[in-house]
């Protein structure tokens, strides 16, 4: 559990559009790495390339290497399905499966992989929901549909679903952007707890959030429409927010643009 990621010379394309150019960075195990930057700078695209979700979009292409504890997830012969079992993802919009109950949502990954042992599934349901700080709120209605929960609860349900398969790395794509401040706080507390066991990468538009939850921060930027996004700098979060080495980072953080 909890592995490190090394991204080496990553270039990402949508058809002919060069979306992300030459990104190299390290994501440390058992820590939170935040990706920040203006819209269109490619931070979500980079995140989606870390568990091979980028290639789900027709016409997309990847160059470069992403090493999970030294193993290239883009090596020939590597099955993207297996990569995604090891590197989980939580999306911007909470997306519980509408036809499944709360319990089935949590263990969907295991059930669809063929796990049938009911006791084991029940155990994992409770552990994952407790891990996502949702157990107390839903333990009496595990058989009700997941779509009946509030937005914040649905997002925590999705986190429970993602950690139920016990991934090595958890990717979060703006997980709080559709939530109210109280639900956001609940998720941020959760991230702080999860990093004891997981490697977490989070994309966020909220710079206070990046400052609150992350250990290191990567700032991405884009020169203009149609230009590729680039990594400007990455460093310890405290340093990026107090004393960045690049002018662009300082401008963005102090709100002079973006």
């Amino acid at each position, binding site marked *: 559990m909890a592995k490190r990621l090394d991204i080496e010379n990553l270039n990402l394309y949508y058809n002919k559009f060069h979306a992300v150019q030459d990104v190299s960075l390290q994501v440390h195990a058992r820590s939170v790495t935040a990706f920040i930057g203006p819209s269109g700078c490619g931070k979500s695209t980079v995140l989606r390339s870390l*568990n091979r*979700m980028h290639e*789900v979009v*027709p016409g997309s292409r990847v160059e470069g290497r992403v090493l999970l504890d030294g193993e290239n997830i883009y090596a020939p012969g590597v099955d993207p*399905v*297996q*990569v*995604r*079992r*090891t590197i*989980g*993802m939580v*999306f911007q*919009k909470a*997306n*519980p*499966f*509408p*036809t499944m109950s709360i319990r089935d949502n949590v263990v*969907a*990954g295991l059930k*669809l*992989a063929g796990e049938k042992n009911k006791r084991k599934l029940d155990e994992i349901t409770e552990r994952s929901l407790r891990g996502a700080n949702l157990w107390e709120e839903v333990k009496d209605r595990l058989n*009700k*549909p997941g*779509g*009946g929960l509030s937005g914040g609860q649905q997002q925590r349900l*999705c986190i429970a*679903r*993602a950690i139920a*398969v016990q991934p090595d790395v958890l990717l979060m794509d703006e997980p709080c952007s559709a939530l109210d401040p109280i639900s956001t706080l609940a998720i941020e507390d959760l991230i702080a707890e999860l990093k004891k066991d997981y490697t977490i990468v989070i994309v966020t538009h909220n710079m206070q959030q990046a400052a609150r939850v992350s250990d290191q921060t990567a700032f991405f930027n884009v020169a203009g429409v149609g230009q590729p996004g680039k990594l400007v700098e990455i460093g310890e979060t405290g340093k990026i927010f107090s004393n960045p080495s690049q002018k662009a980072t300082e401008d963005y953080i102090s709100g002079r643009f973006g």
Partner: protein
Amino acid sequence: MRTDTADIERPARTPAFQPLSLGRKVRNHAATTLFALAFVVAVIPLLWVLVTLVRRGLVPMLNADWWTHSFYGLLPNDFGGGIYHALVGTLEQTLVCALIAVPLGVSVGIFLIEYGRNSRLAKTTTFMVDILSGLPSIVAGLFIYALWITTFGFDRSGFAVSLSLVLLMLPVVVRVTETMLMIVPDELREASYALGVPKWKTIVKVVLPTSLSGILTGIILGLARVMGETAPLLILVGYSRAINFNLFDGPMASLPLTVYTARKTSTEAGEYRMWGAALTLVLLIMLINLIATLLSKLFAVKTK
């Protein structure tokens, strides 16, 4: 602040809300009347058809024999007998049609949306399906006649009818599957992929259950539509007044064919059979629509 004098100095204002002018009242009423009238004009023929059907078709139906007997051995002037032979034919023919058209059509729909999206093959298929959905039923009948009977040398039979109905039902099933899969949000597919679920399992366990209610409703409505088709039946199978369970051998009755044949028997008993069969067909289609509504409620995505 000199509020006391300010109030006096303020200019007089007209009230914001004034009574309705006569012209607007007249136009308002005219519009309401016009639309109500259109509604009445549209509903009258529908009600008329229904009333005529029930008034003439109800009498034969009230006889218990109607549901258990055929017209076998009846002379043109004999009342009595039943529609059982035609019910058997219609149900068998449409059931076999559905057994072929539903798996095929749903699979094509899945291919078009889940695998072929925007590929040349998918675009061509969609175009062909569009053409097929405008195919007149008589042409479907002629095509099957040329293929199944003239070229392959089989006899006219209930199964040939089923084949022609497949041609008519297939585009409906493909279309409805496509539409229903299209409205399943991509976020759900991605959520499933992100859990390490393979694509085919994502389709079977996540995408299809989410759209099941709509697909089922569409299939059943398509079924109800081909059930009343008459033109291919006239070409592809002979009418029989006896009960025939065998789709592959001999003439076979069906409800539309019974209506058509009974009309040619220009006696009072013939009319009695014709209206009885017509009402039975309408009731059957109504029943199927009802089942569609129930199924769509049963399989609808729940939030409570």
